[in-house]
């Protein structure tokens, strides 16, 4: 039996089978609802209000997400509510996936500008009886004379060859040739009439499972001319990677491949429009993505990667003609995909490594990329160990009652007055607070600890008399912002349960760091730099990250945020072909440690699940600071 659902405020209408979840219905209607937990009823983010009609929803089971009043107004979780009758459903703005703040930043260090694609404008002598050399030789010599590679080393594919005779004569022997350095050598990929040598662009792309970021470069001047980002359209086939691999298994890979290309194309189009250029003048696209994303973009079956023994199909960089992947750039342009190491250590991590420069340094660096999953790489120019694990979404704001992504209104920085316990915070875009983002949560945890509101186990000391410390029907909680000061009309709190989730997340990251350090036989004193990559890298307070024991304690000035290292790495590989060549070498050097197979990992995890750590001697500065804070309070 079909039921008709009308979604407000957009009045979008859709017919679905009885028993479908409201979430599925909304997704079919093209509405992007925020589902951090993947529709398991755990995160409480997909709140909708059923204004009329019959549904099935277990209010009791999900009561912790709602106030009495909200329930009275028909609040429910879209993922846990099944459609029984015709419905009128209101979707609040906060439930929709919002425009995400993307890290947009250039390179900190200067990278030599030496791209893999070049254009050469040549004015050739027409052939004569006295000088009868063939068209191609004539063209290649001309290119060599204008500073191009040695003529004998250039290769012209048949497609180009077919165009040469007419074009040379039609243009009166004035043409622009495009030479790309591909694994096979130099290749004449395109020939155009007259001087188009100023029109040469390349794109560096971070193909994330959530977001696609594009940097558009003028490959003549060496300048970024446009930046764009948008959601990965594969989200419609599954929120997380595993769901998408399963989708591919059931419905075929082609849809996911097409969606990946489409996501890139949308960003390319936006960036090209901003820059005012023709997409056909983009001759190269460099893509850094995680292993599954890269496989999917290339149309390689990722199914065998998600089951034991978890092997990817390729471990080296790949170059492909853009038109074979459906990438909307010049049809003769190329796509360069970053190599991957394992199912979890993908091209994005290799890009992180390239952008922080750890593979060229004598000193040992620790690189940490945090998202829902985290990846850790430890090493230097001679050796590298890597591992990956699930951090849970807490550090990104998921599974935390008032956690949110870095959208407008998210608290991203926070301090707490030790006397009055009044928080002072800033929000993204400076508007009234709507929730707390990952970096804000790390600040909050560190501040609650140093003000002794929580103990090292993360338990709130309800013995403290302060209106901000109270016990709700489920957990003790701390009020970060009162309803009248918040942008959502209710108190923004952090509960003891939230804190527990955060501690579990930070413990897995720290335990992974320690596991790699033990594998390499080094201590925290041997680490010269810690690099933070990932979504909240740039906003992260290094001192607070150390205080809660997210990372090993080293001097704060040796901790660096590299932000979106994936796109930075892609940028480097786009504009510097020598660095690009090192990628395969980096990928083959990295040893992957499977944490599940490390018996010591669980032990490290338990000892890391404490603030900052059970072994306080690993955090001498933090310990000193906390002791001082405690004495001050007493």
């Amino acid at each position: 039996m079909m039921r008709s659902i009308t979604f407000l405020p957009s009045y979008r209408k859709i017919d679905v089978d009885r028993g479908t979840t409201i979430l599925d219905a909304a997704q079919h209607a093209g509405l992007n609802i925020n589902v951090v937990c993947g529709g398991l009823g755990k995160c409480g983010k997909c709140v909708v209000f059923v204004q009329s009609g019959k549904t099935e929803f277990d209010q009791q089971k999900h009561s912790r997400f709602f106030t009495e009043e909200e329930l009275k107004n028909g609040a429910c979780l879209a993922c846990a509510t099944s459609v029984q009758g015709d419905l009128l459903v209101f979707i609040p703005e906060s439930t929709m996936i919002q425009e995400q703040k993307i890290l947009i930043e250039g390179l900190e260090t200067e990278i030599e500008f030496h791209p893999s694609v070049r254009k050469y404008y040549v004015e050739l002598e027409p052939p004569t009886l006295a000088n009868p050399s063939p068209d191609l030789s004539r063209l290649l010599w001309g290119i060599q004379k204008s500073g191009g590679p040695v003529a004998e080393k250039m290769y012209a594919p048949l497609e180009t060859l077919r165009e040469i005779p007419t074009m040379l004569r039609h243009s009166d022997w004035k043409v622009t040739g495009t030479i790309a350095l591909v694994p096979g050598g130099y290749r004449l990929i395109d020939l155009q009439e007259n001087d188009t040598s100023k029109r040469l662009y390349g794109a560096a792309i971070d193909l994330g499972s959530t977001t696609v970021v594009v940097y558009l470069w003028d490959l003549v001047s060496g300048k970024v001319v446009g930046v764009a980002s948008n959601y990965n359209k594969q989200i419609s086939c599954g929120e997380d990677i595993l769901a998408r691999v399963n989708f591919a298994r059931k419905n075929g890979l082609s849809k996911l491949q097409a969606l990946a290309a489409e996501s890139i194309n949308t960003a390319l189009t936006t960036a090209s429009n901003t820059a005012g250029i023709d997409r056909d003048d983009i001759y190269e696209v460099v893509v850094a993505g995680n292993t599954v994303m890269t496989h999917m973009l290339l149309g390689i079956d990722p199914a065998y990667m998600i089951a034991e023994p978890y092997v990817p199909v390729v471990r080296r960089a790949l170059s492909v003609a853009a038109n074979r992947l459906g990438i909307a750039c010049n049809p003769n342009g190329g796509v360069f995909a970053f190599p991957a190491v394992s199912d979890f250590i993908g091209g994005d991590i290799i890009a992180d490594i390239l952008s922080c420069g750890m593979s060229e340094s004598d000193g040992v660096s620790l690189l940490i990329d945090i998202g829902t999953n985290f990846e850790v790489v430890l090493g230097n120019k001679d050796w590298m160990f890597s591992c990956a694990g699930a951090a849970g979404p807490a550090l990104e704001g998921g599974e935390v009652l008032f956690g949110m992504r870095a959208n407008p209104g998210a608290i991203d920085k926070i301090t707490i007055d030790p006397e009055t316990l009044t928080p002072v915070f800033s929000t993204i875009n400076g508007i009234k607070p709507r929730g707390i983002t990952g970096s804000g949560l790390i600040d909050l945890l560190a501040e609650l600890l140093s003000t002794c509101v929580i103990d090292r186990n993360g338990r709130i000391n309800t013995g403290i008399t302060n209106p901000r410390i109270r016990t709700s029907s489920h957990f003790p909680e701390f009020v970060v912002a009162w309803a009248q000061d918040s942008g959502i009309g209710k108190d923004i709190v952090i509960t003891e349960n939230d804190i527990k989730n955060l501690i579990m997340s930070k413990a897995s990251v720290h335990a992974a760091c320690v596991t790699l350090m033990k594998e390499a036989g080094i201590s925290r004193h041997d680490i010269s730099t810690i690099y933070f990559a990932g979504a909240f890298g740039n906003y992260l307070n290094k001192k607070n990250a150390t205080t809660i024991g997210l990372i090993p304690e080293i001097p704060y000035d040796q901790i660096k945020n590299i932000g979106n290292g994936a796109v930075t790495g892609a940028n480097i590989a786009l504009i510097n072909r020598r660095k690009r060549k090192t990628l395969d070498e980096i990928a083959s050097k990295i040893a992957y440690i499977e944490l599940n197979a490390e018996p010591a990992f669980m032990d490290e995890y338990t000892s890391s699940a404490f603030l900052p750590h059970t072994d306080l001697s690993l955090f001498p500065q933090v310990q000193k600071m906390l002791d001082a804070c405690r004495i001050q309070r007493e």
Partner: protein
Amino acid sequence: MGFNVHFDWTGSIGEVILGATKSDGGSRRVSYRIGGGTTLPFLDKNPSSPAPLIAFEICDNPVFWSPIIRNYCGELVNNLQEWAKAGDATYGADMIRLYLTSTRQRNFSDFPAVGKAVETALSATSLPLIIEGSNDPKIDSDIFQKCGEVGQGERLLLGTAEASRYRSIAAAALAYNHALIAQSPIDVNLAKQLNILLREIGIQRDHVVIDPYTGTLGYGFEYSYSAMERIRFSALKGDTDLAMPMISSAPDTLTIKEVREADLDGQDDMAVKWEFYTSLAAAVAGAEIVCVRHPKTIGMLKLAFASLKTGTGSMEVT
């Protein structure tokens, strides 16, 4: 027997004094100084390796007690005074551990009765006492306050602090100078974390006894053994946050399948055996105090400890 094994350990287990005699301001006939070890138990004959203490567990509301014990002890279980006295004089325990099971009733609020029970136990025996408070965080504060107050000067061992609820019991221990039991679920790290939490709210190291939680033999005991061993190794290697004596209690020995399914006339024996072997193994793992509920187990443990040629009695301070 004695093994001549040498380790390069530099640490030692901190000492905790349980029970106060008249000269210390209490009314106990004996007081124990437990801990102080510098190596593993039963390794040598020197008197620094005393036999573990045996604590006899009783309660103030036997509804919550194993029918095996109720059958064996008969009317005794309904008379706290006599039960405690028997534990001391008849069964020969070193300590009496009183569980305030009466507090486990719904909405319990008769706090004076709790004080009364502790007073009864104190008057029934002059052995040092372990007092087990409530199971409910809501009444923890009142219960422990009462126990602490009634037992003031007696150096009780109060139980049980856990990572999720340690503030009330710690407050009572601090206010009335009692020691406390710190229990964590079979994990060396969690044991250490709780000890740090206790230290940070002012509990001195010499007032803490670690309960690493004992699973019954055949029902996870090997995990407990390993946790106890690791706690002890860490302490002997110098980790002061783990250098406290340990207590072990495994009441599940009375309810496991083997005991439940034993022939009616063999049930008692089976229960005693299970309790005995679990306790003995816990002592070998390093427990300074082992707690039992069946009177017959006490005698068997004493024999066993003697055969291991430890010092004849626990270290007693008079």
